[in-house]
């Protein structure tokens, strides 16, 4: 059985999306794929209780016949150090091993997803490096976006893994913005190769996968939906509509897929948002615009939501808006598969494990 341990340095690298895509590709090509995330990041969900949403996603998509706590035995909670200080480390290790054994039965390949960040659980010798060693996995590093420091982080991983003789099969440079593609493909890849890290793929940023959608915004705001348009549209940029009519057009035109936050009494701004085909219009202060304005939004299939909060509070709430893929999000799930097919020589990668 092959075992691939996928790690990243920081959140939002697109690690989950990559694992999701790779698993689907492997299954589609006849492999039996198992999944394990020994240390997970919990979130509270109304329907599911406290869970790791990424693990739930994998469970649903790969149709894994295990419970969430079997798939993620350890959840990192606040002040986790105090909690685990009282536990027997050896027992924890054994528990992970046993669990892994159970999950990997009848799998051709096990994909293990790394912890929240590289240092997590170092106090108990259960950080990413320790677990990769424990499970005898080969490591793949994913970096989200590219910069000098993200490349160095991969090399830092390589150094530590080398010290422990844990094999690093290589790296994937994910979510690379268009203007960095060339540099990532040549300069950075070459530098990594020179240092013994094979680059399996440079994946361009895809807003459709990484950006939040109108649906997520609506869930977060819980406002009154005045017009339900296309809620699957992504949101790339958020604007506060407080400027003059003429300048609003200038700003809104400069980017696509905008979320525009403004007051219901700013019929001009709302119209400008409609005119520039915004993804969603958020009206603050519970001010409802005239019907005529809403009709235009409806004609263009643009969602309009009204919230009681003021603009600043609304923006604060929207800071929590992230593009997490949900099990029901079949379109984005299929995009992750396409992403791997398009950019990763997956069979070669698989052979190298």
């Amino acid at each position, binding site marked *: 059985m092959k075992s691939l341990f996928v790690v990243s340095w920081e959140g939002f690298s697109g690690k989950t999306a990559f694992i999701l895509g790779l698993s689907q590709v492997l299954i589609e090509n006849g492999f039996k794929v198992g999944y394990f995330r020994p240390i997970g990041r919990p979130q509270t969900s109304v329907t599911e209780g406290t869970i790791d949403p990424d693990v739930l996603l994998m469970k649903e998509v790969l149709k894994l016949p295990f419970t969430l706590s079997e798939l993620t035995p350890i959840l990192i909670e606040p002040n986790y150090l105090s909690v685990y200080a009282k536990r027997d480390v050896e027992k924890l290790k054994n528990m992970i091993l046993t669990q892994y054994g159970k999950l990997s039965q009848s799998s051709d390949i096990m994909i293990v997803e790394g912890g929240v960040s590289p240092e997590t659980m170092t106090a108990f010798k259960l950080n990413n490096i320790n677990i990769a060693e424990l499970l005898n996995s080969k490591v793949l590093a994913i970096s989200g976006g590219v910069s000098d420091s993200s490349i160095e982080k991969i090399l830092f991983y390589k150094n530590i893994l080398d010290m422990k003789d844990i094999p690093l099969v290589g790296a994937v440079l994910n979510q690379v913005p268009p203007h960095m593609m060339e540099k990532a493909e040549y300069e950075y890849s070459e530098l990594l190769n020179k240092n013994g890290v094979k680059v399996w793929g440079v994946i361009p940023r895809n807003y459709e996968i990484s950006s939040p959608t109108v649906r997520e915004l609506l869930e977060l705001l819980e406002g009154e939906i005045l017009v339900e348009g296309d809620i699957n549209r992504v949101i790339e940029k958020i604007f506060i509509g407080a400027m003059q009519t003429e300048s609003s057009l*200038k700003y809104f*035109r400069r980017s696509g897929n905008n979320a525009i936050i403004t007051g219901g009494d*700013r019929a*001009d701004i709302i*119209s*400008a948002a409609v005119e520039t085909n915004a993804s969603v219009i958020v009206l603050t202060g519970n001010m409802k615009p005239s019907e005529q304005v809403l009709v235009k939004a409806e004609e263009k299939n643009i969602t309009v939501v009204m919230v009681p909060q003021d603009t600043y509070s609304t923006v604060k709430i929207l800071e929590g808006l992230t593009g997490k893929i949900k099990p029901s999000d079949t379109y984005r799930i299929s995009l992750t598969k396409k992403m791997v097919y398009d950019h990763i020589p997956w069979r070669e990668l698989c052979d190298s494990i």
Partner: protein
Amino acid sequence: MSNSNTLMTSLFNPKSVCVIGASTKPGKLGYNILENIVKYGYPGRVYPVNPHYQNILGLKVYSSVSEIDDEIDLAVIVIPAEAVVKVAEECGVKQVKNIVVISAGFKETGKEGAEREKALKDICEKYKMKLLGPNCLGVIDTFTPLNASFAAQMPLKGNIAFISQSGALGTAILDWSFKNRIGFSKVISLGNKADLSESDFIAALAEDVNTKVILLYIEDVKDGDKFIENLRKTVRIKPVLVLKSGSSAAGQRAAASHTGSLAGSKIAYETMFKQFGALQVETISDLFNYAKVFSTQPLPKDNAVCILTNAGGPGIIATDACERYGLKLASLNSETLNNLRKQLPSNASIYNPVDILGDAQPERYYTALEALKNDDNISSIIIILTPQATTKPTETVLKLIKLVDKLDKPVTFSIMGGEQVTEAKKILSENNIPVFSFPEDAVESIAALTRYTFIREKKLSHRKFRISANKEAVREIIKKVLNEGRRTLLSSEACKILGFYGVKTPKVYLASNSDEACSAATEIGYPVTLKIASPDIIHKSDVGGVALNVKNEEDVRKIFIGMVANAHKFFPNARIYGVEVYEYVEKSREVIIGVNKDLQFGHLLMFGLGGVYVNFLRDVAFRIVPVNTQDIDEMIKETRVYTLLKGVRGEKPADIDSVIKTIIAASQLVQDFPVISELDVNPLFVYNKGEGCMAVDVKMSLYI
């Protein structure tokens, strides 16, 4: 214009009219409209339609349109909105040519209404019926005569056509017109403009022999291109006066809330009206003041005015107003002066303004006007009368009327005063001679008339001037930008694009690290200018993103690092591509050339004083694209910076020809690539005549 002809006959002069929703109850619209048609003498055949009645106003009532055994030119529909679409379809089947939907309850009421309006529009398209409204007052033609509206009265017959987007304003104006003895040829209430709009009607009225002047009240224009097309043709034939509301920021908000859509900008509307020959007015009173003059007076030859007055003060006030409104005081020819000298008392002023003194009797006014009558130097005459001790206002006016009728020049009166002059003013009005209380109004309306003379006589240049451009290369750059998911171009890309249209720009390289920046600087030659390269940072100099006159490699390196760090600090989410290294160019006079895409009228071109003060001094002029060299020449001359370009205080004149060429390039570029929504060349350095100009900083945005 065959469409307009059909409209003229079958809508304004139909052979048969049916009123669907006719009622027996006075006070109901269905009754009022039918009554208006019958009462005001419509000569064609009238068919009331209503399944509940047999007879209204002595006419046989039909239970549906299909029952009528006649061809129907016009159907007026005044039934509840929910039933309109079905009835319109019946009209379609019956091959009715025009329908006027009076009923409200469409787009103006919300979603359901909007869907209803769409369905109504589709029916009309399907059966090729013209549709006026819905949600309108109706249509009136005083010559047919046809009053297919629910207006309380029939307006007086006249040669003014009035098109109004607001029904309520229409009724108010009609009522007011009686008091002011203003007559109309046609009154059209546009309503929601689902099909027929202002553009259709100005084209139709251009050909209407009964209409001398077209008045337009609008909140927006439905189709910018069509309006421009029809307007420019119409103003060659007769004047179009426009009152456009919703131009203030609050007004624009109110209009957006009212119509649900954003009208084009105030500047775009003003530019469009001016460029294509409509006379825009600011107030309702101006609209009708001007209308009075346009409907009764001949056009002046040019802007030379003669003022005839019995009072010095008002004469001077009128003189000031002339200058303010672009008129000049005519210099009277020697024959006129001799005549005046002979006939007038020696202390009268025979030079323009002609002051015939406070004791002027009707006879003196008459002889003076007689003397001015045939002076070719005079294009229009303003007659001022103030009631002084021995003045006889009524008699004076009665005496002058006979002469005014024979003049081939426009005349306006300013009869000042109250009780004493009421009769005199009434007489003038009754004789279709424009009269105002105050001299400024008399001058302003003559100025409007003069402006129209210039509009009508303006020679249209058809000279096409095209710059040979490398469109393929431009297309490549735009494609690359869009592929990267960007809408804002880097300056280096924007410069290249202008370069492909023959505009000189400084050498520029994009450097993504300090090594590249240094070699770019060496290649270009020191000193250089460095600018942060990020599509997300628009006002670069505000965040330390511009360094001028950088002299050596060490500085380039330091500035590169600092600039990028600064950009990250101020705009944490901005995409930073690096730094652009520019060739240093010699400073010169700074002008701005800008293009912005207006929602209604497309690309709006701007020219004016450039540099950092552009937003403060606002010395700019606008035109709607496309423009020809004549337009550009006029546009440049509208600005104060033109004076600077010509050279002041011994300065050499600037290369204005190269500015014109650059403007043509900008206009042609956005025409070739409508995807460009914004272009800003600021500054364009203009060197001395023969030395060209250079686009130093170029911003460009796309909008798909």
